[in-house]
């Protein structure tokens, strides 16, 4: 089997055994990127020499006897929202075109420390605002399953890169579903860790009370390896949890749901859900039952208002966070001809540098926070947030995990929802509650929808710091599905 089709765990083992060098593995993936990028367009930045030099350094560290962990020498695609010292960081925005951060994000630094080799920076919806990667200022990324469809978003470059075998692993960030939804629509695994379980330091902020870095991989075990490699307490992030990382790798080895109580969220299904998505989901529920889990229907009545609450809270935080792009200290500056004031230059720069979705959200957030509307919108949304957390708490008294479809539909066509923000927002209907409550949640493949032969994702949600439960159930499902399918779902994807 060629190097690009191997799992991250296999590649790490080959490097550790001295059978293949990190440089050879990086070169094979760079070749794959070069061959498939004209079709997929997953990356905003690739620099072959920078990547190969990183790989040679990892090889040297291994030769010197340094203990690097199971992913040393494994390549990774890195979402272009994490600061990287040696590569541009743009958040897919014109306002940050060519920006070279003077420091590494904590996630970036931990990838390097663990000996992972960064292949490049992946495309995203501008500032991670979107569900299709169409909001990038640098062009759309295409879904490897069907190049006329979206790869999900905002981490769509990262999901497409892994599904297209350009990288065995990638990073993402999940504010309302931006890891789980892209994973679902590209047939791979994507995990949103517990909020505060992975560091936001050096992650360009969108909505600070929700943003959570997490892993993408082609299987549950690889995702867990990456999760452990970059998660854990970071004193540079004031909302980082000072507690041990849940044992997610061990949980994938357990892969057993017998005796577990699994709740099916009653509110997620029915109208607005694609029949093929519900069919695959219902099969997965039966499969879990056959594996010895107890299935319980659970009602979470306020989940129906999670979407409107989110579209008040996230834009409010965004309008505040993005005020830093003021054309003064870094980034784009437009119209500074010596006659205009700083305020005029700011307004011209922000109008030229931000795309339409970012402008919409900044104005929506400014509205929700403005005097006279604050209590009715932002304040009320925060109360709904409390009620959603209570719904979860009540549910977790009865069950160990909750499950639902990850998304109401499979990947939609590029352009289909581009002019209809509310239709676009519906893609995150099932993923948003976990962000509002700070809970852990994973998406794993559960088959192809009959209507369009496109991947369907199943979401497993667990309480704060219950990340290991997501991996345990995900690994059990994956094992059972792969036995049924005769291998991973991704083998059904067309060759590129």
């Amino acid at each position: 089997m060629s190097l690009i089709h191997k799992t991250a765990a296999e590649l790490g083992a080959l490097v550790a055994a001295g059978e293949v060098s990190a440089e050879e593995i990086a070169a094979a993936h760079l070749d794959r990127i070069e061959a498939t990028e004209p079709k997929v367009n997953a990356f905003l930045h690739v620099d072959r020499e920078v990547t190969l030099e990183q790989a040679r350094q990892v090889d040297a560290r291994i030769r010197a006897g340094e203990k690097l962990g199971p992913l040393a020498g494994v390549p990774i695609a890195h979402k272009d929202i994490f600061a990287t010292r040696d590569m541009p960081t743009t958040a897919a925005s014109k306002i940050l075109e060519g920006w070279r951060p003077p420091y590494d994000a904590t996630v970036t630094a931990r990838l390097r420390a663990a000996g992972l080799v960064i292949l490049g920076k992946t495309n995203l919806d501008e500032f991670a605002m979107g569900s299709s990667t169409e909001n990038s200022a640098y062009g759309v990324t295409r879904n490897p399953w069907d190049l006329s469809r979206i790869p999900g978003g905002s981490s769509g470059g990262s999901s497409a890169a892994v599904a297209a075998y350009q990288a065995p692993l990638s990073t993402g960030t999940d504010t309302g579903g931006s890891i789980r939804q892209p994973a679902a629509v590209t047939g791979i695994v994507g995990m949103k860790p517990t909020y505060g379980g992975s560091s936001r330091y050096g992650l360009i902020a969108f909505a600070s009370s929700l943003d959570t870095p997490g892993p993408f991989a082609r299987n549950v075990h690889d995702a867990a390896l990456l999760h452990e490699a970059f998660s854990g307490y970071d004193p540079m992030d004031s909302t980082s949890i000072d507690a041990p990382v849940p044992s997610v790798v061990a949980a994938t080895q357990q892969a057993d749901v017998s005796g577990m109580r699994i709740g099916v969220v009653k509110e997620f299904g029915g109208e607005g859900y694609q029949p093929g998505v519900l069919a695959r989901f219902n099969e997965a529920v039966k499969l879990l039952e056959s594996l010895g889990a107890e299935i319980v229907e659970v009602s979470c009545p306020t989940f129906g208002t999670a979407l409107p609450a989110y579209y008040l809270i996230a834009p409010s935080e965004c309008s505040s966070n993005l005020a830093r792009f003021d054309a003064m200290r870094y980034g784009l500056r437009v119209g500074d001809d010596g006659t205009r004031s700083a305020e005029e230059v700011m307004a011209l720069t922000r109008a030229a540098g931000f795309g339409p979705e970012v402008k919409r959200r900044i104005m929506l957030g400014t509205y929700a926070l403005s005097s006279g509307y604050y209590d009715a919108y932002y304040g009320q949304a925060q109360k709904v947030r409390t009620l959603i957390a209570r719904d979860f708490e009540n549910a977790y008294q009865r069950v160990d995990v909750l499950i639902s479809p990850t998304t109401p539909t499979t990947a939609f066509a590029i352009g289909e929802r581009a002019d209809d923000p509310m239709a676009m927002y519906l893609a995150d209907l099932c993923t948003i509650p976990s962000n509002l409550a700070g809970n852990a949640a994973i998406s794993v493949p559960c088959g192809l929808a009959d209507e369009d032969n496109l991947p369907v994702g199943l979401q497993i949600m667990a309480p704060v710091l219950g990340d290991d439960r997501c991996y345990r159930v995900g690994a059990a499902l994956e094992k059972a599905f792969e036995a049924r399918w005769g291998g991973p779902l991704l083998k059904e994807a067309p060759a590129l």
Partner: protein
Amino acid sequence: MSAITRDEVAHLAKLSRLALTDDELDHYATQLDVIIGSVAKVAEVAAEDVPPSSHALPLTNVFRADEVRQSLTPQQALANAPAVEDDRFKVPRILGEEE
């Protein structure tokens, strides 16, 4: 009745420091009206006695030790600046003519 008028959108754009064209204002007024009409559903939830959550974790007042640490050099801090003069950020005038 519309949830938001074009004039209100123009005011929001000013507060947001976004120099929008007339066409953009028309476009966003229509879209924001739909979005605000939809998110206003949060008002239907009975929540008078519910405390608001600004955050998912019960963390307050996280401090670090007050110690001098290595920070950026002036060259590093200025490396991405749009304009620099004498080791400082050079910015457009911030006061009006008469101030």
